[in-house]
C-alpha cells in the first residue's frame, strides 16, 4: 500500500524527456558523465603518481641518511672494538668530520646510558659528549632499547618482523632516523640523525591530466552531437548502450595513455634518484676511508655495500661496493613498483567508468527524479539511516577492510595498507576441508574444522529458534485466551528468564548440569535413571546449550507474538466460528497468516542472534568436549582475543555475515513469495 507523496511535482515522463533533450550536447548527462568520470580517473591517477614520486624521493633521501648512519655505525663499532669502552674522545671528532654539519648526529651506548658523541648544538661545553644521558633524554634510551629488542626479536624468531631502522617524522620536514650498531654481534647502542629533509620538487604534469579530461569531455559531447545530427535524441533517463560503449573506449584510451606517460616519467625519476644516491655513496666511502685511515681503523662498506640497507638492515644490493649500479636489481625494483601502480591506475579507470556509467546509463537522472519525487519518504527514513551509517556501517567497513589484511596484535602499529593479503584469509577459512583426522583409533572428526563448526552452528540455530518460536507461540496463544484468570501473574513469571541477567542464569544452568552435584542428574536419579555425564559427549553437551538457550529465549518470542496477536481483529474469528471452522482450522487460516508480518522479522532476528550467541556457549558448555560444540562466533572470538589475529578474525566475521545475509535474503524472498500467493 502506498500513499502518493509529493504528487504535485509528478510530470508526464514524455514532457520531462523533451525538456531534457533540448539542452546543449555538452551538457547532456552522457557528456557530463564523461567529464566527471575522466576527472575522477585522471585526478586519482595524478594523485597516486604524485604520491609515488614524493615517496621515492623520500625513500632515496632516507636511504642516503641511512648509508651515512651505517658508516657512522661502522666507525663507532670500530672505535669501540679497538679501544674498548675507554677512549670515547676519538668518536666525537670522527662524527663531526664524517657528518660535516649535515644536521645533528648522536651516538648512544646502552651500557651505562652514555651519549658517546654528538654534533647537536645543545651538547656543548658542560653538556658535551661523552657523558651520561640526562633525565629528559629518556626517549633516546628508550629508542635504543626498542631497536635492541627489535633485533633480538628478529634473531630469536628467525623472521624479519620488527623494523631495525627507525624513521620518524618530527614535523616541518624534520626527520629523525636511527639504527643500531653492533659490537661482537650484539647491539651495543644506536646512532641517530636529525636532519631537515629537503626534496627536489617533482610533480607530475597537471597539464597532461587536464588535457585528458578536456579531451574526454569533448569526445563524448561530440558523439552526442553527432547522434543528434543523425536525428536520434537520446533520452537522458534511458540506457544508451551505444553511447556508453563508445564512451568507455574513449575513457580507457585516455586513462591508459596518461598512465603510460606518467609511468615513463616515474621510471626516469627513479633512475635519476638512484644515480644521485650512488654518487653520494662514493663520496661517503672516500671520506670514511680517509678518516678511518687517519685514526687507524678500517671503515669500509665492503664489496657488496653493507651500507645501503632497507629498514630491516638487509642489503638492498642496488648500489655495489664500487658505486656501480646493479642494473638487474634496479630494473626488478622499478618493475615491481610499476606493477603496483599499473594496478592502481586500472582501478582508477574502473571507478571512473562506474561514474560515467552512472550518468550515461541514465541512472543519475533517474536518481535525481526519484529523490525529488519521494523526498518525504526519504526525510522520514533519514535520521535512522544516518545513525546506522555512522555507528554500524563505518565499523562494518573497517571490519571488511581488516579482513583483507593480516593484522595481528604484533603488527598493529603498521599502516593497514602494508598488510594487504587479498583473499588469502578467506581461502584459508573456506578451504579447510580436513573434516576428519586419522588417529590411532581410526578416522575421528576434526572439531577445529570450519565446516564442522558451521554444521554445529546451523544445528544450534535451527533447534533453538524452533524451540523458541514453538513455545513462545504456545504460551502466547494460551495467555491470549479470553477470560483466563491469573494471566498477569503468568506473564510476569514467564518473563523472568529474560529479565534476570543471563550471565548468572547461564552459570546456574551450568551448575545444574554438573555430573555429580548438579540438580538435573539428581532429579534423574530420583526417578531411577542413571546420571548423565553432560559435558563428556558431543550430543549431551549440545543439549545443555539448547536447553539453556531455549529457556532464555522463549520469553522474547512470547512477548512478540503476544503483541502480534493483538492486531488480529476478533470479527474474523467470530465469522469463522459461525461458518463452523474448528479451532485448529482457525489457527492455520487466520492466526498464523495474520501473525506473519510480526513473526517473520522476529524469526529472522532470532536466527541472527542465535547464530551469534556467544554468551551461552561460552558460559555453559564452553565448547566441550574438545571444542566440538563451539560455534562460529566463539571461534572468531578466540582467534581475535587469544590468537591475536585480528585480520583473520575479521575475515571469519565476514564469512559469518555473508552466511547470515544469504539466509536473510532467501528468507525475505520466500516470505514475499508466500505473501503474494496468500493475500
Amino acid at each position, binding site marked *: 500500500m502506498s500513499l502518493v507523496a509529493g504528487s504535485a511535482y509528478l510530470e508526464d515522463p514524455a514532457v520531462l524527456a523533451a525538456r531534457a533533450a533540448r539542452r546543449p550536447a555538452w551538457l547532456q548527462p552522457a557528456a557530463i558523465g564523461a567529464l566527471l568520470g575522466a576527472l575522477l580517473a585522471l585526478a586519482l591517477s595524478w594523485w597516486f603518481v604524485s604520491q609515488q614520486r614524493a615517496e621515492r624521493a623520500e625513500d632515496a633521501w632516507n636511504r642516503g641518511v641511512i648509508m651515512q648512519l651505517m658508516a657512522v655505525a661502522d666507525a663507532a663499532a670500530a672505535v669501540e672494538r679497538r679501544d674498548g669502552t675507554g677512549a670515547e674522545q676519538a668518536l666525537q671528532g670522527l662524527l663531526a668530520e664524517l657528518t660535516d654539519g649535515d644536521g645533528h648526529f648522536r651516538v648512544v651506548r646502552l651500557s651505562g646510558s652514555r651519549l658517546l658523541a654528538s654534533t647537536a648544538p645543545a651538547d656543548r661545553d658542560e653538556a658535551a659528549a661523552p657523558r651520561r644521558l640526562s633525565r629528559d633524554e629518556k626517549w633516546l634510551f628508550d629508542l635504543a632499547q626498542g631497536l635492541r629488542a627489535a633485533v633480538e626479536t628478529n634473531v630469536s624468531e628467525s623472521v624479519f618482523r620488527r623494523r631495525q631502522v627507525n624513521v620518524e617524522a618530527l614535523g616541518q620536514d624534520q626527520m629523525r632516523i636511527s639504527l643500531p650498531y653492533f659490537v661482537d654481534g650484539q647491539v651495543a647502542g644506536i646512532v641517530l640523525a636529525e636532519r631537515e629533509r629537503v626534496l627536489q620538487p617533482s610533480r607530475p604534469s597537471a597539464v597532461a591530466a587536464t588535457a585528458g579530461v578536456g579531451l574526454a569531455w569533448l569526445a563524448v559531447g561530440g558523439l552526442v552531437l553527432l547522434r543528434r545530427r543523425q536525428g536520434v535524441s537520446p533520452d537522458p533517463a534511458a540506457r544508451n548502450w551505444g553511447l556508453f560503449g563508445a564512451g568507455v573506449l574513449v575513457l580507457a584510451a585516455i586513462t591508459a595513455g596518461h598512465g603510460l606517460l606518467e609511468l615513463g616519467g616515474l621510471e626516469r625519476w627513479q633512475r635519476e634518484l638512484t644515480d644521485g644516491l650512488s654518487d653520494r655513496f662514493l663520496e661517503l666511502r672516500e671520506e670514511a676511508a680517509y678518516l678511518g685511515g687517519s685514526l687507524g681503523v678500517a671503515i669500509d662498506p665492503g664489496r657488496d655495500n653493507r651500507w645501503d640497507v632497507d629498514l630491516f638492515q638487509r642489503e638492498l644490493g642496488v648500489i655495489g661496493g664500487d658505486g656501480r649500479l646493479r642494473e638487474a636489481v634496479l630494473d626488478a625494483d622499478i618493475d615491481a613498483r610499476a606493477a603496483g601502480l599499473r594496478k592502481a591506475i586500472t582501478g582508477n579507470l574502473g571507478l571512473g567508468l562506474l561514474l560515467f556509467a552512472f550518468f550515461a546509463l541514465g541512472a543519475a537522472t533517474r536518481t535525481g527524479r526519484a529523490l525529488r519525487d519521494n523526498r518525504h519518504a526519504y526525510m522520514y527514513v533519514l535520521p535512522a*539511516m544516518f545513525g546506522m551509517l555512522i555507528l554500524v556501517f563505518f565499523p562494518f567497513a573497517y571490519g571488511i577492510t581488516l579482513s583483507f589484511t593480516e593484522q595481528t596484535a604484533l603488527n598493529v602499529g603498521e599502516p593497514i595498507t602494508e598488510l594487504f593479503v587479498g583473499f588469502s584469509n578467506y581461502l584459508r577459512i573456506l578451504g579447510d576441508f580436513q573434516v576428519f583426522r586419522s588417529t590411532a583409533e581410526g578416522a575421528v572428526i576434526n572439531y577445529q574444522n570450519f565446516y564442522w563448526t558451521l554444521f554445529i552452528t546451523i544445528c544450534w540455530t535451527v533447534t533453538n529458534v524452533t524451540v523458541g518460536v514453538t513455545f513462545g507461540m504456545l504460551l502466547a496463544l494460551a495467555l491470549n485466551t479470553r477470560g483466563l484468570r491469573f494471566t498477569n501473574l503468568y506473564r510476569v513469571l514467564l518473563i523472568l528468564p529474560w529479565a534476570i541477567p543471563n550471565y548468572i542464569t547461564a552459570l546456574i544452568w551450568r551448575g545444574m548440569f554438573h555430573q555429580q552435584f548438579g540438580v538435573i542428574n539428581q532429579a534423574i536419579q530420583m526417578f531411577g535413571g542413571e546420571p548423565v555425564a553432560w559435558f563428556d559427549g558431543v550430543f549431551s553437551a549440545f543439549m545443555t546449550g539448547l536447553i539453556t538457550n531455549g529457556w532464555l529465549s522463549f520469553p522474547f518470542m512470547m512477548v512478540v507474538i503476544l503483541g502480534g496477536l493483538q492486531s488480529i481483529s476478533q470479527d474474523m474469528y467470530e465469522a469463522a466460528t459461525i461458518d463452523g471452522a474448528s479451532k485448529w482450522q482457525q489457527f492455520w487460516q487466520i492466526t498464523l497468516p495474520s501473525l506473519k508480518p510480526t513473526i517473520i522479522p522476529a524469526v529472522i532476528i532470532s536466527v541472527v542472534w542465535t547464530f551469534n550467541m556467544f554468551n551461552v556457549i561460552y558460559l555453559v558448555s564452553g565448547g566441550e568436549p574438545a571444542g566440538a560444540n563451539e560455534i562460529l562466533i566463539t571461534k572468531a572470538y578466540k582467534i581475535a582475543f587469544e590468537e591475536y589475529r585480528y585480520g583473520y578474525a575479521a575475515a571469519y*566475521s565476514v564469512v559469518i555475515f555473508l552466511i547470515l545475509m544469504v539466509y536473510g535474503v532467501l528468507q525475505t524472498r520466500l516470505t514475499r513469495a508466500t505473501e503474494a500467493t496468500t493475500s
Partner: protein
Amino acid sequence: MSGQGGRRGRRMQHLGLHVFLVAFSLIAVYPVLWVFTVAFSGQQNLAFVELPPDPGFLDRLRAVAPWPAQFSLRNFVDVLDQQPFLRWMLNSAIVAGLTTVLGVFLACTAAYAFSRFQFPGRRAGMMSFLVSQMFPGTLLLVPIYIIITQWLGLGNSFIGLVLVYSVTAIPFCVWMMKGYFDTIPIEIEESAIMDGASRQVIFFKIILPLAKPAVAVTALFSFMTAWNEFILAATFLEEELKYTAPVGLRFFVGGFSSEWGYFAAGSIIISIPVVFLFLYLQKYLVSGLTAGGVKG
C-alpha cells in the same frame, strides 16, 4: 454452543491451559529460584547439591528444592551498602530510558515511511537494517571506541552509550513496527486526510495509538538492550559514579575469585525495574482495533 455445556467445556479447556501454563511457569522460575537461594543464603557459594550417604528419594528431593540452608539478607544489604549500587541503577535507568525514547522515535518514523510509501531503495533499506545485525560485534569494539571517543568526542558520557544502544535496537524496532503498521488499514488515514488532517496529526493521534502493542514491544526491547549491556559501558565510562548497573554488577565476579552471593543479590535487584516496566507495558498489549472500528 452456549449454556451449561459450553461453560463447563470452557472451564475444562481453561483447566488444561492452566496446567500447561503452571508447568511452564515452574520451568521458567526454577533456575531463578536458585538465584534467589544463593542471594538469600547470606553466603558467597554457588549452589551445589549436598547429599547424605545413601540418599533416598526424599533426600534427593530436598537437595533439588531451591531453598537456602540459612535465610539472610546480608548479601542484599552489603550490595546496596558497600558500593553506590542505587546510583548505578539510576545511571542505567537514564541510559536505558533515553535509548528507548530515541530508539522508538527513530524506528517509528522509518517504519512509517517503509510501510506507507513506495520509493526506490525501500527494500534495500529494510534489508540493510536487517543486515546490520548480522556482523558479529566481537571485533568492533575498537572502531566504535574510535568513532565515539575521537570522532564524536563523546567518551565517558551517557550520550555516546545511548547512541550506540539505540542504533543496535533500531533494526528490530523498525521491522516490528513496520509489520504492525502494515496491518492498520489505509482507509483510516485516507479518511483523515480527506477530513483535512496534517500528516503529523495523523501520525501521533491516529497511527500511534493503534500501534500501541508494537510500541510496547519495541520499547521493552530497546530498554532491555540498553539495560543489560556490559562491555561497551565498561569501556566507555571512566568515572565510577557514572557506571551503569551491569558494570557495577561485574565487580563481584571475574579475576580469580567470585562472590556469587553478591552477584545473585545484585542480579535480582537489577531485574526489579524490568519486571515493573513489563507490568506497566502490559496494559498496552491489548488490541487497538476494536470490532467495527473501521466500518461506517
